[in-house]
């Protein structure tokens, strides 16, 4: 093991190298670029014996990975924002072909207006494409999650592509100490991919094909089965990861001081660090508050949310994204998960941090205050709605 002071982007690159990826393909987009620059260095220096296919678009980047995975290779790509939107068509191909690609996504706002700040709208908009989706809070979690993503995605019961998200700039361009494990330990955790249902030279099979309604439904159901296998497989993967590396990131929903909490804030990504500090402050002041960090968005961890909802009165769900004409996407998922449970807490949807706007401790405090003492609106834009403080831009 080596401790390096590296960015979240480099954490992606080191993890892809440790995973011994065989084919990399990517197209540059801010703030993803340093991931693939580092990988290009690894390949150029002979540290990573992979094929790096430099393509003319993100659409082609993902097609290269899909086709390479269809022949049995372990593949990696990375993108952000507009690039991910351009990939949308291929996202469906990847899951439909059961291609266990791992993709690093640096969450960035979607145009227009142009904005390169942190924002989850790009990946939230891909929630129905059959990809497993992880959101990370730290650079260490990024590296560890990429390694686990390969093990999970290539699990023969799962066989699905996985996105590993990091917030633009808060992680992508911020350095912090990261334990980079040694290759032998990673090799023990992550053996070579065992391909299934891939192209075999000399065998006249067709991968992809077309079907009428007589078989199409069965194919889609198989993808759903793969998604259903994720949560049980993840538990095994995380336990084995802990055994070998000594780190555990808390399962699909990592809770913090939720015991005896009346209200809980549910966050994703880097704002969780800020919220945890505020929880400590409020707990010191005798307020019964807790935090739940959602790490896994697809499949949505329904049972974990129900377990959390059993004991709390109110959950404020913070979405760093927007779904015009409804609640935040995560808030909608949480409501859906809890409907019909024995105890259904009140669910409030907060939209915060969109377009890279900082989610500050005072902003988090205001959210907790409304949950503890106020009558929260069903949905509110944290910085803009008067209930939650002085609007910044009137």
């Amino acid at each position, binding site marked *: 093991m080596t401790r390096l002071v590296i960015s979240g982007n480099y954490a992606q690159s080191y993890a892809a190298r440790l995973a011994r990826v*065989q084919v990399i393909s990517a197209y540059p987009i801010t703030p993803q670029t340093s991931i693939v620059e580092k990988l290009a260095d690894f390949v150029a220096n002979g540290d990573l*014996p992979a*094929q790096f*296919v430099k393509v003319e678009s993100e659409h082609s*980047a993902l*097609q290269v990975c*899909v*086709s*390479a995975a269809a022949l049995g290779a372990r593949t990696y790509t990375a993108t952000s924002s507009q690039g991910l939107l351009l990939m949308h068509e291929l996202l469906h*191909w990847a899951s439909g072909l059961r291609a266990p690609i791992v993709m690093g996504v640096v969450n960035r706002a979607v145009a227009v207006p142009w904005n390169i700040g942190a924002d989850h709208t790009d990946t939230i908009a891909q929630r129905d494409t059959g990809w497993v989706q992880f959101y990370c809070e730290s650079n260490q979690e990024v590296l560890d999650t990429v390694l686990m993503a390969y093990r999970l995605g290539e699990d023969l019961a799962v066989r699905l592509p996985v996105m590993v998200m990091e917030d633009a700039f808060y992680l992508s361009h911020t350095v912090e100490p990261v334990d980079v494990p040694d290759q032998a330990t990673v090799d023990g955790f992550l053996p070579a991919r065992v391909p299934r249902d891939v192209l075999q030279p000399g065998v006249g099979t067709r991968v992809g094909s077309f079907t009428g309604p007589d078989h199409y439904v069965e194919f889609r159901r198989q993808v759903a089965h793969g998604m259903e296998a994720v949560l049980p497989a993840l538990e095994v993967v995380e336990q084995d990861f802990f055994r070998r590396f000594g780190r555990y990131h808390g399962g699909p929903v990592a809770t913090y001081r939720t015991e005896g909490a009346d209200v809980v804030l549910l966050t994703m990504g880097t704002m969780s660090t800020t919220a945890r500090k505020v929880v400590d402050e409020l707990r010191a002041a005798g307020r019964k508050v807790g935090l739940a960090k959602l790490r896994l968005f697809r499949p949505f961890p329904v049972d974990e949310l129900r377990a959390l909802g059993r004991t709390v009165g109110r959950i404020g769900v913070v979405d760093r994204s927007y779904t015009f004409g409804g609640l935040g996407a995560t808030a909608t998922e949480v409501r859906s998960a809890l409907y019909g449970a024995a105890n259904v807490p009140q669910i409030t949807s907060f939209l915060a941090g969109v377009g890279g706007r900082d989610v500050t401790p005072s902003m988090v405090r205001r959210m907790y205050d409304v949950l503890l003492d106020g009558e929260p609106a069903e949905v509110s834009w944290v910085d803009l709605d008067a209930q939650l403080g002085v609007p910044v831009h009137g």
Partner: protein
Amino acid sequence: MAKLTIPREELMHSGHAACPGCAPALAMRLLLKGLGPKTIVSIPACCWTVIATPYPTTALGVPTLDNPIEATGASISGLRAAADALGYHDLNIVGFAGDGGTADIGLQALSGMLERRTNAIYVMYDNEAYMNTGVQRSGSSPLGAWTTTTPVSGESHGKAEAKKDVMGIVLAHRPAYAATVNPSFPEDFVRKVEKARDMKGPRFLHVFAPCPPGWKYSSEQTIAIGRLATDTGVFPLYEVVDGKCRITRPTNQLKPVGEYLKTQGRFAHLTAADIAAVEVQVRLGWERLLAFERESTVPVAPTAPAVRVRPPAVPA
């Protein structure tokens, strides 16, 4: 009588779903005869998606991958990268795409594949319209052709624009090999496929592919129409190796273009003046090709070698 040189081995099965007289079906059959079994084919959305027959059957005796319509160039780059990484060094990697999926929506991915020097063969079977969706015009539809989106009614008199010069676009990328082929000349077709097979780097084949329902002619006329296309200069047969052009079916006497045009209902509305205008275009194209053959004596600038191949590294 000359001895037949076309391999007997069939890698395309009977029971495929092509229309009677389908030239793209002939093209695939001849292509695979030339390439042999060590081949993987990537096919975008096109007639061949259907011709290969639905799950769980396939008309092809080689591994086949489906890809979206605009991504064939990228798909074969991915297949080659994986083949190199996994140690499959003797595979022919082939993209087999229609004219719409190549000249229009797939042009970017094709350009990327050529520029990257992907070691693969890209085949465009050119039936001169979006046939699988029901005969809509593509950039590769010829001047004057009726299609469902270039109707013959009111102000519309068939396609108002000339056919896109895909070979010219490909040649601007300095491929290792580029050639036009026509199933009506099967020996020339297979010889060029074998030549392409034995080379490295990006290779491109432009296949003339008559379509009975789309071009509105009787299905037994496919071969005759294909021969006329070449002998009138509408679709000359040539190859370009390292930038140097050679016409593989030279002639001193092109037949009148009208003989070709009158065989197809899609040109039935053309007047004598229209035909004369097409004739001028075809003759100019032939003269330009002759000049290209005459003058392309200097090889193109050497290009970078294909991506370095490293041995696969797999954890013990």
